[in-house]
């Protein structure tokens, strides 16, 4: 049975749940350096450079694991961390069902947006 342990984030005004096992750390949104030819940026977090996908204008950057890669999602706002009641694929937070946040899908969205430009 899923534990419901993780983070609840606001991404572009919508709440999403991110399981704790996929999250390494949460930091304040650092300065992002664009990488020419790539939809991702680079950020210096805790002494290492990581690839970052920009998901919005929030104050936080969540360092998470997507596949076997470490990737940052910047521009989110973390609303809660801890144990939540599982509900469907997501959790219950403040009385509402919060769907899961798909990091791989977010990376694809960023790539698509970049290719359209």
């Amino acid at each position, binding site marked *: 049975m899923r*534990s419901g*342990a*993780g*983070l609840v984030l606001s991404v572009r005004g919508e709440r999403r749940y991110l399981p*704790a*096992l996929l*999250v390494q*750390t*949460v*930091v*304040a949104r650092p300065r992002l350096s664009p990488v020419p030819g790539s939809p991702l940026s680079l950020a210096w977090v805790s002494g290492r450079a990581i690839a970052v996908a920009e998901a919005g204008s929030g*104050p*936080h950057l969540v360092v998470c694991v997507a596949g076997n890669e470490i990737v940052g999602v910047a521009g989110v706002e*973390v609303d*809660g*961390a*801890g*144990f939540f009641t599982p509900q469907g694929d997501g959790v219950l937070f403040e009385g509402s069902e919060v769907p899961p946040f798909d990091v791989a899908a977010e990376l694809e969205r960023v790539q698509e947006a970049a290719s359209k430009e």
Partner: protein
Amino acid sequence: MSRASRFLDALRETLKDNAPMMRSTSVDDALLVRAVSKAEQAAESALGASQAAGAASAQQRGTLDAAVDAVRQLFTRAREARSSLALSRESLEQIRLVALNAGLEGARLGDPTGKPLVLVADDVRNHVTRVLAALDAHTGVLDQMDRERDKLREQVEGAQARSADLARELLQVQAAQRDVSSAMSDVSSRVKQVTETDPETAALLADASDHARALLGALTKLAEGPRRSPVLRALSPSLGPLAKLLREQYRGDPDGAP
């Protein structure tokens, strides 16, 4: 008939038909000299008053300058307060992040091992959220104070500008009054030259003329009353010496003998 009554009759007789003609040239000169002297004194007084107003205006400008400095000081203090608030906010945001990561760590440890850590982290985040709300309120108050300070600065600077205008006007008034004083002084010396009248004598003469007219008027009214003799007799101790003095002064002068 008493001496006083006789004196009065004589005086009235003398002045009766040609009272306006009695004004001798020397009396007119004396009146003129006295008027010029009074005008000169008034001009000096006005100059003194405008100089005092100038000094008061300078004091007022000093006070307004101090007020402007105080307002500037308030702006500096507000900037310092804002800077402290920004530092506090930054630190609180860091604490909130630490609490979020502590909650994440607790979640990773699983229930029940990580539960206490999650609870403490939640508690810390809630406190931080409350303090951040209080800081927002403080920032709002500072914003309001900034707006009020802006208004205050505008008003004080406006008063400062008006005070400077007033000071300039007062300087012009002082210059004009100095000119008036100087002109009056010139008029006075020319009047003295023309009339060849000593100012002190002129003042005494003018006063004596005024008193003589007043005395004559009063005595005439008394003499018209129903009980003129007892009243005039009562005045004889005062009028006697006067009559004697006038007799001595005008002895041998056909126009002036009372």
